[in-house]
């Protein structure tokens, strides 16, 4: 469906992206993740043909973006980062223009305009100038434009940027509903967005693709030791005594109790060890009840920060 092969883009002597390769199959929702200026927008501009790569190529439904750009672009609906609109056109005129530019005409065009207007819920502003629409509506007009010729692939560059929480929620719901029929690639630097929508993550940093995999893989790839949150029904000294006797524990810290009695600790295991069972048996022997035992899952946020900081460290060493 989409295949990028060693895409490289230089802006003069400055690196945009370097040697990026990936393959996206039909029906996937892929999140392009990375800090600002990492190369997300550049990659999207290369895929949509707004920029040509200095090296490498990308294929959209087996059509090269350089050799067969018109066919390749036909398969893509694109919402660009700032979502520029012709501000002195009415929404209906704008969609009519965009539809015609994408090769629609007559009844088909009319039907598609009706469809996208309903789908993106922009019926209320259809006769307004695009320039006088609110940010939330503008974003939906942009998505309606991307959808107008029913392309199999949607590329959305920061679709929820600058929206208020309610608008963000609606836009996400819209994207989710679109993912049933379209392959969606979206870029964002908001991690919760990826968590809410995407099934796969491409992580880009400083122009390089540094991770490609599912969300779970991304979380697990950086989970080396087990972190537990436990509460024993005993005093602190006894708790410390129990934990000190378990060899697989790397370190532990006392936590403030939150009115539930007993003493709480956060425990870090040695790398690759599962210590839950051992804690249970130890407490059983000592006749100390466990009130709570919770494995702390690594959040995406932590994984993201960790990947980025590790990459930077490696770079410094080199």
């Amino acid at each position, binding site marked *: 469906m989409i295949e990028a092969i060693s895409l490289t883009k230089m802006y003069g002597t400055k690196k945009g992206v370097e040697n990026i390769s990936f393959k996206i199959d039909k029906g996937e929702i892929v999140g392009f993740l990375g800090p600002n200026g990492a190369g997300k927008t550049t990659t999207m*501009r290369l895929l949509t043909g707004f920029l040509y790569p200095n090296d490498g190529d990308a294929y959209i439904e087996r059509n090269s973006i350089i050799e067969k750009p018109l066919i390749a672009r036909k398969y893509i609906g694109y919402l660009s980062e700032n979502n*520029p609109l012709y501000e002195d056109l009415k929404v209906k005129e704008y969609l009519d223009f965009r539809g015609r530019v994408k090769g629609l005409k007559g009844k088909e065009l009319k039907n598609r305009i009706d469809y996208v207007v309903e789908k993106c819920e922009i019926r209320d502003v259809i006769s307004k100038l695009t320039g006088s629409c609110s940010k939330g509506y503008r974003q939906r007009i942009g998505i309606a434009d991307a959808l107008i010729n029913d392309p199999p692939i949607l590329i959305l560059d920061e679709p929820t940027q600058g929206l208020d929480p309610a608008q963000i929620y609606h836009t996400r719901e819209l994207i989710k509903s679109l993912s049933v029929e379209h392959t969606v690639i979206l870029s964002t630097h908001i991690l919760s967005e990826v968590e809410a929508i995407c099934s796969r993550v491409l992580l880009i940093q400083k122009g390089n693709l540094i991770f490609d995999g599912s969300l779970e893989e991304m979380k697990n790839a950086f989970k080396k030791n087990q972190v537990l949150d436990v509460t024993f029904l005993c005093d602190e000294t006894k708790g410390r005594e129990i934990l000190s006797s378990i060899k697989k524990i790397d370190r532990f810290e006392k936590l403030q109790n939150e009115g539930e009695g007993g003493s709480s600790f956060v425990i870090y295991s040695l790398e690759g060890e599962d210590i839950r069972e051992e804690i249970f048996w130890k407490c059983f022997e000592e006749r100390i009840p466990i009130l709570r035992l919770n494995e702390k899952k690594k959040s995406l946020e932590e994984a993201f920060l960790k990947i980025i900081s590790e990459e930077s460290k490696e770079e410094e060493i080199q």
Partner: protein
Amino acid sequence: MNKLLAITKKELLHYFYSPMAYVVLWAFLLINGFLFYVILSALSKTASPPVSPLSIIFGGSFFFYLLTIVITVVVTMRLGAEERKQGTFETLLTSPISDFEIVMGKFLAAFIFYVVAWLFTLIYVFIVKAYQKDLDFGPIISSYLGTLLLGMFFISIGLFSSMISKNQIVSAVIATLIMTMLLGITFLEFISSGVTREIFHYFDILTIMDNFSKGIVDSRNLIYLLSGTAFFIALSEKSLEARRWQ
């Protein structure tokens, strides 16, 4: 063709949704009307030479060139510069439409506007016809042909200037500069001699327009204006492609 016309329609909507179109048309007609009046009254004096007032309107005066430059610059200066400034080139260039269709669509819109402006001047032809029964329509038709061809040439220059500028004013300055330089060939012809003079003569727009207003349709003149137009349209198209390689 459908896509090209979509671009043309959009550009025409831009013209007529902004006050610009009306101001330009109004100014164009006012100046041309005043000019026509001045020429008519000068020529009605008994001692005046037997020249048709229409041949002065078309290329026979400084005002003709001033008006042509102003109107072609004004209708073309925002065609590319505004898209670049607003960022809408990104949506346009990522659509399944060729660079040639984009450029030609814009060119056509500007040309339609130019033609509409000159269509109003047909009224002068009827006025002259009313007083001059033996009016020869040959030179009038060729004058209009020359005016349209010159318009095409200047519009292509304006379009190219706009494609390479981010700012409408810069675009207008570049276009005016190129057009003035082309008109300045007259002076080069004046101060040179021999073969050089011959060459400059071929490129001299004043001579070309003089031919058209006399009813002479010289294929060399046609080729110069048409190939000039094609050259700047091709440059505009290339400038779009160059953006992708930036």
